[in-house]
């Protein structure tokens, strides 16, 4: 429960596609405390517009105090971040929220769609370190086109994970939804971790539920504070009432979430 605010320095900026970027920043205290599935709140720009910090999953953590965020340009905050250059400072708060709870026993299946792939890489790193990565079924990665997937798929491979891909336009891997790839694997899986667009997570949660496979999902909500204070980031809970995504989540067990709305 220790959060830090660090004026981190951008050490690396990569442009993966026209609108997908990866920034690696030096923020040793946040990096040291980070757990897979947690996120950071980043101040974009230095004026009052944009006003609020932007939440991003922790995508990678390196031993030397660095962490990376992987993001797509959506609006003005991500546009400003995409223009930030190495050497510039970035005001980062984290690590925030409650992340994945890696089940001690595999096999583990990681499923990421679009920018939902971001937290899964950190999880994959973590599973490897704790000795649960190598023998696992393929990581399933989906995106609109191959451009978004190429480098990321390669990096999961380099970690030692088999990778299966799906693209909307069929330019890489399975043409269609990444969730289609799950059916063939469900029998051999004990734990699914999924992050991506809501309909995708709903589908995965449904399939896992039917197959009796444990499933953890990483939700999104508009956030003002990221600290559990504003009560803005709610998501309907299956038990009635609301989850606060920034504090109780962003990762939930699929059955805790009210998927119907």
């Amino acid at each position: 429960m220790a959060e830090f605010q660090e004026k981190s320095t951008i050490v690396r900026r990569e442009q993966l596609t026209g609108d997908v970027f990866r920034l690696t920043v030096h923020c040793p205290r946040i990096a040291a405390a980070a757990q897979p599935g947690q996120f950071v709140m980043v101040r974009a720009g230095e004026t009052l517009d944009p006003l609020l910090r932007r939440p991003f999953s922790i995508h990678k953590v390196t031993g030397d105090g660095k962490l990376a965020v992987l993001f797509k340009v959506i609006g003005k905050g991500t546009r400003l971040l995409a223009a930030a250059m190495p050497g510039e400072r970035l005001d980062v708060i984290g690590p925030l929220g409650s992340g994945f709870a890696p089940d001690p026993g595999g096999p583990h299946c990681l499923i990421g769609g679009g920018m939902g792939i971001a937290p899964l890489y950190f999880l994959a790193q973590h599973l490897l370190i704790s000795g649960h990565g190598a023998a696992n079924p393929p990581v399933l990665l989906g995106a609109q086109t191959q451009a978004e997937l190429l480098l990321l798929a390669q990096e999961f491979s380099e970690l030692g994970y088999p990778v299966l891909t799906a693209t909307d336009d069929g330019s890489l891997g399975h043409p269609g939804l990444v969730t289609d790839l799950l059916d063939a694997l469900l029998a051999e899986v004990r734990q699914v971790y999924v992050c991506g667009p809501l309909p995708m997570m709903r589908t995965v949660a449904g399939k896992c539920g039917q197959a009796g496979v444990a499933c953890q999902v990483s939700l999104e909500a508009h956030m003002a504070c990221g600290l559990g204070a504003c009560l803005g980031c709610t998501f309907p809970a299956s038990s009635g009432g609301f989850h606060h995504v920034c504090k109780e989540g962003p990762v939930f067990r699929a059955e805790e979430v009210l998927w119907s709305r």
Partner: protein
Amino acid sequence: MEQVAAAPPPVDLRVTIGSLTLQNPVCTASGTFGYGREFAALVNLERLGAIIVKGISLVPRPGNPPPRIIETACGMLNAIGLENVGVERFITKKLPFLRDLATPVIVNILGDSVEDYARLAGRLSGVEGIAALEVNISCPNVKKGGVAFGTVPEMAAAVTGAVRRETGLPVIVKLSPNVTDITAIARAAADAGADALSLINTLLGMAIDVRTRKPRLANVVGGLSGPAIKPVALRMVWQVARAVSIPVIGIGGITTGEDALEFLIAGATAVQVGTANFFQPTATEEIIDGLAAFLRNQGLSSIRQVIGSLQLE
């Protein structure tokens, strides 16, 4: 000759709200600082003038469905729907942490009827560790067709009087800006026994997603806060400070020491920091430092020399 760096001369930031003395005028606005603990890792809570907690009702409220917040130009809209743990769980679960701080705790209360407010005030009065009550009168009066207590002077007076009768704690009445003449409401609350007034609560606003053609907030309308509203808040604080003789607490978009000074110069005895806590958690501490630096630069010894010092021709 060697230069010895002299310690900066001490400056006195203390202010008084009714019977309550604050070590400095910088408080946290209700609903923007949770129950204090949420910020403990990032902010030195002991430095704050006071902590004002999320609005508390008699029974827990689940709040509105999502989406509840949306960013706007230099501001944000919220429609939390007054989600809170209710007065009993507040006392047992949230207050103990706050009680252990030296910082005064002010409890923001809200209700659907005059009786709700009175019962809340009565329940909280006996409880140790509460320095004052802040009465949020922006809520709709469910018995009177949903018109907000804060928009009709007689209704504001009724709530204030009911709370006043139930408690010996300082009573701060928090005014809504969505009115034609805020000084009329202010005078009504002052006359009904308020020890201080705090303003402004949020401006009613709206945003639409043009692709779905739906309101961006599930509640359709919400409260606008943040730097965008500062000019309106400052104008109202200036008007109210001239209209009443009790202390006024300025709220609305305060982000920097300079912002806080504007409110103090306009006549506020203290300020509350709201939305700024979200994008800059250390805003309150920076504001406190900014006030001290201002006094030193101007060769003043006390923040009380600044309050109400607006120069008009």
